[in-house]
């Protein structure tokens, strides 16, 4: 099982803050593709160039490998400080 989190504007656009994926294995990029296949209306939001990804609470790139028990997050550019 992989936990997937969405934050800020992206969370509002998708209408959900957290989902779980059963039996997923592959890269972060594969995970995003899987989500867009399951939810075609997410694609324009989740596939934006500026969307950032984290794997186990560290910034990560599309090639990073996701395994069972991992926590993945998608979010727009940060605006704190």
């Amino acid at each position, binding site marked *: 099982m992989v936990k997937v989190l969405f934050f*800020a504007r992206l969370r509002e656009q998708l209408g959900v803050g957290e989902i779980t994926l059963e039996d997923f294995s592959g890269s972060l990029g594969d995970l995003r593709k899987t989500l867009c296949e399951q939810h075609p209306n997410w694609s324009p939001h989740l596939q934006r160039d500026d969307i950032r990804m984290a794997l186990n609470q560290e910034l990560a790139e599309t090639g990073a490998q996701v395994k069972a028990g991992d926590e993945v*997050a998608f979010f727009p550019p940060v605006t*704190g400080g």
Partner: protein
Amino acid sequence: MKAVDRIEVCETPFDVAAEYTALQGNSGDGACALFVGSVRDFNAGSNVCGLALEHYPGMTEKSLQRIINDARDRWSLGRVVIVHRVGPMQINDEIVFVGVTSPHRQAAFAACQYIMDRLKTEAPFWKREVVVDTSGKPSERWVAARASDAAEMEKWSAG
């Protein structure tokens, strides 16, 4: 020199004076640089009347610790404090406090600015502001990231 980090993400107002006090204790550190960011009443062409900050609990603290660790690799630092507010806020409320002590003022200034520049571009916080239009009608919007913040980060890799 004792290296002490304090990282706090808080939902209520913090006290700048108390945070300054938390930086004391290294008598070899003659220099202390501080930055405080507050909620402005104007942003991107609109009057702002309120703000809410969302964050990614867990990743936030890891991200701030990593930024501090990298700052310590670059400069000789004594104490480092980062406090960041989340949740709803009002105009003039303090959002962020960064404090750094060092034996040398150049190191204190550089590290404080470096921490702010990285926090702005990679710590998982998102601002949502309440703006009022000319008719006085309020609406909410997510604050857009600024290209200038990303550009600021580049100066740290140039050296």
